[in-house]
């Protein structure tokens, strides 16, 4: 199968002198896609040998190629001798560091590329708690945060600048901790660049938060109320999550643009990110034509896996949209409840004032106070509903869109292959005709064309196989990440509900 055949055993650390960066720039580079550096969890889980512990669902590891590939890595890594026995995840952690800081590896070399990942993948299966510990550990390897939104400038030219801080032990960065200032269009620009480079490979590129003309205008104009503050906070959190997803992605992290984004002090202004720019229009047109072509492609896929997964993705997206709408409604009703409770509290206070029986008057005033406190609680609950739950859903709705895009890419590649095949067929017919008509000079040209197209067919077929593998791999990684994300966020939400109930009880007492 194409997958394993093109996976050569990784070169020994230090011996590697090819610059993977340049390779990554070239879309046909194989290595670019296999790189997992330091971001343990999603990677490790996707590539763990299928001695899965009871918690891991079996279907994640049903892909034979994937595990054999992983296994081949493991055997090679063991021969590297960089790490000790990986029975214990403690050691795994240690060996991660060792290989990271292995002096013989050049900063961006394959040592960094391959060994740490192999170490992690060679780790014996851990229980979910240990995996979660590792996840905490990987923030030890690479952590990004988006903080301190600041308004720069005034009037319609004003913009919000955000501080992007990175803390990392990865050797490919110049420092351990550093921060830069970025604005929203920079984030969009990053997405554009990554999109251009990687989406054709079938990578799932995390989409950035949406533009909002209304929201930003309010901020620009200087409306200093809670809705602007909310908007800025929401955007900050969304940008942070976006960046965290990007650095979590093994291939994307290697991209020099990402590095530049995190490190470089001044970034050139990203063009083409304005809603009404020329590039924006072009994108819209492209999307429209894509939609049309999408409708006509139907891959007769011998591998039903892709069809099934696409269907799953589509139905899940539908459900998530529904859920998001309901959560939105809940947020609104809670806000309404909050307002109504405040108003009611005041009313009760008034009633208490006019009540001439002192005991009752006091009781009513107390009730008014209680209701007031309830109002605060309701408000916080609404905020938590929103920030934890609604945003999570919105993120995943966008991500699922990106996943679908991925699948579409694969379909396009297939189509290109098929078209090449039919062109080749036509060329062959032309050749046959010429042979029959006996025109030797044209024949030579026909033969050349046939060779050319034969080459293309082979290449496109290889492309298709490659993208299929990448898409599959990406999808599995995505599923895992999504699963963890949902679980942790929902737990966080329930915990906030819990806290809020406890506070209600305290108030009532």
């Amino acid at each position: 199968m194409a997958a394993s055949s093109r996976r050569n055993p990784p070169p020994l650390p230090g011996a590697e002198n090819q610059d993977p960066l340049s390779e990554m720039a070239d879309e046909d580079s194989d290595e670019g896609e296999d790189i997992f550096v330091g971001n343990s969890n999603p990677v490790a889980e996707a590539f763990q040998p299928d001695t899965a512990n009871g918690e891991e669902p079996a279907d994640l590891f049903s892909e034979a190629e994937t595990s054999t590939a992983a296994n081949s890595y493991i055997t090679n890594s063991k021969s590297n001798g960089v790490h000790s026995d990986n029975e214990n995840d403690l050691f795994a952690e240690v060996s991660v560091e060792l290989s990271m800081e292995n002096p013989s590896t050049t900063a961006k070399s394959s040592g960094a590329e391959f060994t740490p990942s192999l170490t992690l993948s060679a780790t014996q299966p851990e229980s979910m708690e240990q995996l979660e510990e590792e996840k905490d550990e990987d923030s030890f390897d690479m952590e990004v945060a988006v903080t301190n939104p600041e308004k720069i400038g005034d009037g319609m030219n004003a913009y919000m600048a955000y501080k992007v801080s990175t803390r990392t032990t990865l050797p490919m960065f110049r420092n351990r901790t550093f921060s830069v200032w970025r604005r929203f269009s920079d984030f969009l620009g990053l997405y554009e660049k990554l999109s251009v480079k990687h989406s054709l490979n079938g990578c799932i590129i995390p989409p950035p938060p949406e533009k909002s003309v209304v929201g930003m205008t309010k901020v620009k104009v200087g409306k200093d109320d809670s809705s602007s503050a909310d908007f800025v906070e929401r955007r900050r959190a969304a940008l942070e999550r976006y960046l965290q997803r990007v650095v979590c992605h093994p291939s994307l992290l290697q991209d020099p643009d990402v590095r530049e984004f995190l490190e470089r002090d001044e970034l050139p202004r990203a063009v083409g990110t304005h809603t009404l720019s020329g590039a924006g229009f072009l994108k819209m047109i492209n999307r429209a034509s894509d939609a049309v072509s999408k409708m006509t492609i139907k891959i007769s896929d011998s591998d039903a896996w892709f069809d099934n997964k696409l269907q799953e993705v589509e139905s899940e997206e539908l459900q998530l949209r529904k859920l998001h709408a309901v959560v939105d409604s809940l947020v609104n009703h809670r806000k309404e409840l909050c307002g109504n409770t405040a108003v009611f509290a005041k009313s009760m206070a008034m009633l208490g004032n006019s009540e001439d029986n002192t005991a009752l008057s006091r009781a009513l005033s107390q009730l008014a106070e209680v209701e007031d406190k309830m109002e605060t609680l309701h408000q916080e609950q609404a905020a938590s509903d929103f920030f934890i739950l609604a945003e999570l859903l919105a993120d995943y709705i966008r991500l699922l869109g990106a996943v679908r895009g991925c699948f579409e890419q694969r379909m396009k590649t297939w189509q290109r292959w098929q078209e090449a095949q039919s062109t080749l067929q036509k060329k062959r017919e032309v050749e046959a005709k010429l042979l029959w008509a006996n025109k030797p000079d044209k024949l030579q040209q026909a033969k050349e064309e046939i060779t050319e197209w034969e080459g293309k067919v082979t290449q496109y077929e290889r492309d298709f196989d490659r993208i299929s593998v990448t898409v599959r791999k990406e999808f599995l990684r995505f599923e895992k990440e999504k699963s963890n994300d949902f679980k942790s966020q929902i737990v966080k939400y329930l915990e906030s509900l819990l806290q809020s109930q406890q506070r209600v009880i305290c108030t009532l007492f």
Partner: protein
Amino acid sequence: VSSVNVDLQTDATLQVDISDALSERDKVKFTVHTKSTLPNFKQNEFSVVRQHEEFIWLHDSFVENEEYAGYIIPPAPPRPDFDASREKLQKLGEGEGSMTKEEFTKMKQELEAEYLAIFKKTVAMHEVFLCRVAAHPVLRKDLNFHVFLEYNQDLSVRGKNKREKMEDFFKNVVKSADGVLVAGVKDVDDFFEHEKTFLLEYHNRVKDASAKSDRMIRSHKSAADDINRIASTLYTLGTQDSTDVCKFFLKVSELFEKTRKIEARVAADEDLKLADLLKYYLRESQAAKDLLYRRGRALVDYENANKALDRARAKNKDVLQAETSQQVCCQKFEKISESAKQELIDFKTRRVAAFRKNLVELAELELKHAKGNLQLLQSCLGVLKGDT
């Protein structure tokens, strides 16, 4: 029994309750059940069937009876209103095709429960009216009341026709204009002067509080409904696959189902203990205001009669007539004042007791629900975290 049925002396001489009720398409039939040792009834225990209009007839007969001018007439029960609920049920029926079977059954159950709750409330309000009448030392002896309780046949009381409703409307306009006039007269008696100011302010504030509490409770119910829908959608997500995350969704969906029920109960309790309480005292404070108005009217009449008498004496014309008229007014006024004082004091006692009882119960219930919610959340989180 409703939230406001407090401290109503139920003694063996006369006990009234609504033992049953039937909801037909556009009317509700109440079975009024009486137990009495009073000699004027033919039996000791008996029941009749009454409809809302007959209650209104009884109430109006009290209001129109001059003898009762000095009493706070127990406010009439509000008309049973199932329109909103019926409309919702109808909409649900129409939208049946667009939702899954589970969703439909669930929503139907919800609406049916809501219908039942409204039904229970209207029964309670009618019952409270009767109990108040039965507990009142004077009103309980009213002949119309006895007829209402005992007469086996339909009272042939029809609802007011258009003309009568117009008459009522004009009467009300005149009355409120007059009320303003009367209220302007300063009272000699401190007690009543104080009560007048107090009741006016109190009534307005109760009205405000009642409206705001209604809005608050409605928001609460909407939020609970949303949680319901979240639970359903999570359930659908959870049943799509059998992965880890799907099992997770199913558990959370279950949790939300349960918390939603609790949230709905919280809203319902608030409705019953707070909103209904405020609404009832809105009506009663209006009845108390009406009493004060009648007294004020009598006072003005008395003062006018005094003036007329003075004028008559001055002119020495129709003095006897003026004297009688003045006597009548004086008696009427004093009679009203005497009973009004007691009535207003009773009103306060009742009010304080009702508020105390209901607020305490409400607080206890909310505490109970919050603890229940807490427990659900804790156990669910325990399970979810244990799994992960």
